[in-house]
């Protein structure tokens, strides 16, 4: 079961910019991302918005497919900076793994 925690976005501030709430889930980033995935990176950004910490940790490895190429950030119509959100999530997940 996923526990929804709106405080999660606050917790993530330590790891990167707090822009996830700008995202309105249009999917432009998914369409343009060179990984050609059905839902990356939007799915992870949605998880941040709803505070789905466990789901982020469960799909932690997927974050490292991201090339940090920045194309999604350049084309996001809401300046949500998805590429930097993914980088912040890498930092968050790596810190959690290192604490394990």
């Amino acid at each position: 079961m996923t526990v929804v925690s709106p405080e999660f976005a606050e917790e993530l501030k330590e790891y990167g910019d707090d822009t996830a709430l700008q995202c309105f889930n249009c999917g432009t980033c998914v369409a343009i991302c060179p990984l050609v995935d059905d839902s990356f990176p939007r799915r992870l950004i949605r998880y941040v918005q709803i505070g789905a910490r466990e789901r982020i940790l469960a799909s932690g490895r997927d974050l490292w497919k991201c090339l940090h190429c920045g194309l999604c950030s350049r084309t996001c119509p809401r300046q949500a900076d998805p590429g930097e959100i993914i980088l912040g999530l890498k930092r968050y997940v790596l810190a959690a793994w290192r604490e394990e």
Partner: protein
Amino acid sequence: MFDPKIIIDLLAENVRRTGNPFGLSTGSINGWWKGADLPRQGANLLFTGMMYQMVPAINAATGLLGKYEDTPAGDRIRFGRRVPRFLSAAVLKMATAKEDRSAAAGVLMDITRILQASGVDFAYRPELDGYSGILLYDLGDRENFIAHARRVAGRLQEAGVERLITVDPHTTWALRELYPRYTGYRPEVRTYFELARLQGNGDREVTLHDPCFYGRYLELSQVPRTLLAGLGVRCADVNSAGPFTSCCGGPAESVSPALALTVGRRRLAELQATGRPLVTMCPICHANLRRAGADVMDLSALLVRFTRSGENSQKRAE
């Protein structure tokens, strides 16, 4: 795909111990300058960031990782929570190809010739050169990136270096954007092609692949295009260029060579659609597009043809 944590911990430990992600001694990867008789004093310091010098090790490591990815042995590496032995410095050193080492040295020598022909006052001091730590940053290990960046910045500050010349997009971005933010060191950073002043008439057309950091993060795409246009070299229109360039896939090579190759092949198809010779300006793009099957030339190899020494060596080759 390999366990990112195992890979990142290994790279971070290597950077901490040896200053580069492969655990190789600086002397063993940075010998290109020997015999070049480069000045040790000058208004600008050439700072290579070691990216070109690391390409032989990157190719060796990617080749070895690629062999094991998604195999039972790879699974043991993924789930065994241990560092794969084949990534040890000794194995990597043996696995580096001689032609990769001389190609990397050739790029750096060409860059010094371009700077000399452009009348740029520069020095090279190998003891001040170093890896920027950018891979750690991109992989999310900000803590270890900062620790390393402070060591590199400290050395440069102590030597009173205020102006740097860079040769690759990753190091350029790290020094321009990340070092001021995380270390407080704010040098003036210019790429060698921003300083190049060359003359000639090449009358040809090439396909220039913009790396993400030059094209998008630093918005420098027009600089090499203007330089080339002045030399009679036209750049063919590419689908996805400049700030909207498409990644070569190289940054995935440390965790998934298969993914790096898939993305690289896709990008290569876009680039090859022009039918013109392919030119890159980044060692990571160069290496990954080559792995994807491209015949590719570094920008420096094209520019050096417009210097006297480049002209002479070309004539000798003919």
